[in-house]
């Protein structure tokens, strides 16, 4: 198999208007920087973006917001931490004005929705969020005397992930805390596209230490190592 694409724009060519797209990253770490920029260049619209945060660390996502490409966001930590930064923030303002619809989940639920989508599990129960606004409109059920909520899987049309190393068969290795959501999103994606800092020959990755096996990855693009990120909350 050869999943390597020499051209990043060709690797996202079939992304369509209205697509649901997941983006790896926990704040600044492990974000698909170049794929996100390519998506902004492509200009597809009415996107639903699935990403932990939009107010901290992954500023390149703002380009999609400013260009009006996003109609809905599914997040866990959507806004800048401080209210004053939020007042000047394009995404927060778009949500306040009703231009972008927003769903928010606790992180554990957010990632489990993705993992379940990848594992063929349509729904699951969790006590997290019971008795809070997260529970509104959801089926509640008591297990072992504890109230649980039913949450559903979140399959995505495309998953954009960032890996440290990858090979042409789609095997991926992440680095330190840049792992974060990339594996769960790769599993949840109908079409998963990985940007890798270094593409290595098949056989060069230690098979004992593959984080995401190639079956979950459709395309691989080598993008090099990004310049040092800013990290601020």
């Amino acid at each position, binding site marked *: 198999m050869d999943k390597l694409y020499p051209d990043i724009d060709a690797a996202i060519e079939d992304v369509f208007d209205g697509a649901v797209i997941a983006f790896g990253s*926990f*704040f*600044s*770490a*492990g974000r698909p920087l170049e794929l996100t920029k390519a998506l902004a260049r492509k200009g597809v619209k009415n996107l639903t973006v699935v990403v932990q945060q939009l*107010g*901290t*660390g992954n500023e390149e996502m703002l380009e999609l917001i400013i260009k009006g490409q996003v109609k809905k966001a599914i997040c*866990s*930590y*959507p*806004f800048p*931490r401080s*209210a004053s930064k*939020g007042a000047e923030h394009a995404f*927060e303002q778009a*949500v*306040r004005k009703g231009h972008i619809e*927003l769903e*928010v*989940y*606790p*992180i*554990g*639920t957010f*990632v*489990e929705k*993705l*993992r379940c989508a990848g594992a063929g599990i349509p729904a699951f129960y*969790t*006590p*997290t*969020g*019971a*008795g*809070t*606004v*997260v529970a*509104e409109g959801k089926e509640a059920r008591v297990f072992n005397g504890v109230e649980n909520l039913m949450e559903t899987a979140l399959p995505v049309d495309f998953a954009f992930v960032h890996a*440290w190393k990858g090979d042409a068969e789609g095997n991926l290795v*992440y*680095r*330190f*805390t*840049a*792992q*974060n*959501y*990339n*594996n*769960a999103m790769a599993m949840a994606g109908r079409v998963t596209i990985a940007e890798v800092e270094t593409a290595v020959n098949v056989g060069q990755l230690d098979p004992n230490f593959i*984080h995401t096996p190639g079956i979950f990855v459709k395309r691989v693009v080598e993008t090099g190592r*990004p310049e*040092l*990120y800013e*990290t*601020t*909350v």
Partner: protein
Amino acid sequence: MSKLSKVVVPDMPPLEREMIALRIANMLEDGSYVNLGIGIPTLVSNWIEGRDIVIQSEIGMLKCGPLAEEGNIDQDRINASCQFVCDMPGTSYFNVETSFAMIRGGRMDVAVLGALQVSAKGDLAGWNNPARGLGKMGNIGGSMDLAVGAKKVIIAMEHVTPGGDPKILKKCEYPLTAKECIDFIVTNYALIEVTPKGLVLKEVIPGITAEDVQKMTEAKLIIADDFKEMEL
């Protein structure tokens, strides 16, 4: 915004944030796995050097080390507060689904979290300040999972708001993080345990009386049998 009446704050200077963190560090047992939230909770890590306490960062790091200094920073190594950190012998990295299996699966001995409001029953409201005007939307992050999943939840916070409103209430006004999840509340004036009978005032800082603390607290406080002055 708030319907609550302003409280009377005593003349004694309250504890600095670092000292709240120190009091909490002294509550942690050796051999514990601990997660620290953003704000005062993060400062607890400054007081556990040399102790057998493992810090989990929900980004996907167990045995998280101190903040990294200039020259030793790596963009792929940050904690869940987006700060550059170091690893240590025995550190492990993993994905977020594994990280939250630790938290939701009951492996976290203690979560130290901040709060906007807490209630007499141990309810926590910490993720959404209605003053920001975002309605039911806000930054939930890992707070709900930690409040529900950790074996013990310790709240680290100022006793009253900067505007002088009480934060320890009969019932929370703000959107909840989780119901009946809190075990201890440590503030810049007092240490309070949440019990089935209600809030038990166990310690106050030097120069303050139990009555002073009650005046800053909307919920009724029960004085502990072993009530004492806080030692740091």
